[in-house]
């Protein structure tokens, strides 16, 4: 605000450089998007935008809370199993209750059960990490296995079909042409972005990741904050699982393998530090969008499956290298 540009030039140029310097990945994204819109046929069409938005909706939801988790210096691999388990559980519960009560209640209770289960797993992760001081990678790797097992056991290893069509609404309806899952993801971006910037909880999260000891000495309830973060993460993953089940019209125990890594990568691409303390919601959104767009463009261009691997890796690498080059160049 009252900082002044102490290097050179007119204020306008200074302002532009300010945008350029701070926008980082957002610029990379804008450039990629513009290029795709110009050169990739069908990219900039309503149908494709809808498809693109849908394809990133899950990762987007997960990334919102993963941002908190990484910002406080931790890690959560278990979300991928939670997505599967909560979906399966929601369907199983809803199916079991249907008939004995109104359609609305059975579906709501089923979904509630899914979200609750996710939250409980999150709380467990949080307690183990915060109270017992176990490394989050090991903890969530273990709960990831346990929860995947539970998903398989609950479903008998088979997809469980949804018997009540009201369940589909969450995933298959839309509002003014925007699919509900996309709206939910946008809502998550807004809510969690707000939580990060405008509440003490969010600031404490960053403080803990930036210097846990200092935070503890400043009287921040470090353990409680961590548990809340993991619980939130579990809850959102659980909710994402329910939405996915509704989109797929069934609960699938094998789904979402590799989801956690994808979410973490999107966050890191968006500038979230793996060692904690640094991260912003706009950054995460850009990270999520870049990852989704790369895949979308490759599908549109019908790149050979094997070459897709190479292209995906190369584009990811170029994006971060470009961002770094830009930073070096302008920040000395």
């Amino acid at each position, binding site marked *: 605000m009252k900082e002044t540009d102490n290097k050179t030039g007119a204020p306008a140029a200074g302002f532009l450089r300010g945008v350029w310097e701070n926008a980082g990945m957002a610029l990379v994204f804008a450039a990629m998007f513009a290029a795709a819109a110009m050169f990739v046929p069908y990219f900039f069409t309503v*149908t494709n935008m809808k498809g693109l938005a849908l*394809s990133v909706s899950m990762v987007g939801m997960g990334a919102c809370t993963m941002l908190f988790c990484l910002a406080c210096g931790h890690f959560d691999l278990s979300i991928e199993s939670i997505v599967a388990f909560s979906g399966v559980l929601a369907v199983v519960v809803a199916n079991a209750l249907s008939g004995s009560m109104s359609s609305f209640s059975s579906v709501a209770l089923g979904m509630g059960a899914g979200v609750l289960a996710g939250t409980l797993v999150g709380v467990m992760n949080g307690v183990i990490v915060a109270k017992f001081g176990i490394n989050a990678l090991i903890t969530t790797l273990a709960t990831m296995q346990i929860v995947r097992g539970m998903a398989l056991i609950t479903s008998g290893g088979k*997809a469980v079909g949804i018997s009540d*069509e009201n369940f589909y609404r969450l995933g298959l309806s839309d509002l003014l042409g925007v699919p509900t899952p996309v709206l939910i993801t946008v809502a998550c971006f807004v809510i969690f972005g707000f939580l990060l910037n405008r509440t003490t909880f969010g600031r404490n999260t960053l403080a803990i990741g930036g210097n846990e000891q200092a935070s503890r000495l400043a009287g921040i309830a470090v353990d409680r904050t961590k548990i809340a973060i993991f619980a939130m993460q579990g809850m959102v993953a659980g909710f994402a699982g329910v939405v996915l089940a509704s989109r*797929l019209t*069934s609960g699938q125990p*094998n789904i979402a393998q590799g989801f956690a890594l994808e979410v973490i990568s999107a966050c890191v691409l968006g500038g979230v530090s793996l060692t904690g303390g640094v991260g912003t919601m706009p950054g995460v959104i850009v990270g999520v969008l870049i990852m989704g767009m790369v895949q*979308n463009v490759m*599908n*549109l261009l019908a790149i050979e499956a094997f070459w897709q691997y190479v292209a995906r890796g190369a584009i990811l690498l170029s994006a971060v290298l470009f961002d770094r080059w830009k930073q070096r160049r302008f920040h000395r």
Partner: protein
Amino acid sequence: EGCKARKPGGATPGGVAVEKIKIGFIVKQPEEPWFQYEWQFAEAASKDLGFELIKIGAGDGEKVMAAIDNLAANRTQGFIICTPDVRLGPAIAAKAKANGLKLLSVDDQFVGADGKFMTDVHYLGISARKIGQNVGKTLWEEMKKRGWKMEETAVMMMTFDELDTARERTEGAFESLVEAGFPKEKIYKAPQKTSDQPGAIDAANALLTKHPEVKRWLVAGMNDSAVLGAVRALEGQGFNAENTLAIGINGTDCIFEFEKEKPTGFFGSMLLAPKRHGYETAEMMFKWIKDGTEPPKDTRTVGMLITRDTYKQILAEQGLLKDKK
């Protein structure tokens, strides 16, 4: 035809004495319903015939090697395997021989170093290419039956080329469609990034974006999940049972789709018969160990089309509905 009589002890021509017969059953993806069924039927055989079944899941070559070592340590006399990769054949065969284990491969046939099928290894299964061809043929026939016009119709081929079997299946479907007269250039490939349903949805969505001109879609893929993902994506773009004709492979992952009140674009699936793959292989192995009766080198099963109308009956016949409800 289970011979309930257990004959403990007594050396048999096969050569195993007092010890109880133990048979291993290794599968590549234990979480998949198909393999769950195979195991379930093998389990049934073990109850009927009185041997011990040891089930191990092994997702890649290294795990397979470890699993065979475990079986050897566990004093099994033979094992049945659905290998994660057919080219592991020589390694598996060598390892089995080194450990003195009898070997029967199921589902996917081993391929030797020379690229030819290893016909000397006992095998029961179904040709991936053939079942794919079946899908293609059925799609074609059903399309004709519905009277869809060729110019409005295109094929969405959900591919996952990283997996050998998956590619064989989709290539089979491709071949038979082309052979029947479907224009090659209207068979569009949608490569999946992941083999699960969300992966299929994203791939299908991108393809649909590119071909707004197509009015009716035929869908094929490596399994039910891939095809169901495509159906979900099509529904998202306003397609329905009227203008979608999708056929999966497996028949066990799609039952919930048939149970829906209204028909969807998912027309049917090629049911593989896990009962034969599970029960018969176990039985063959048991007899081989116990009496020394060598099973036939090559046994083939066939895929059966199940649809909304026929699935209940066929599944019941196959013993696949008893755990429902």
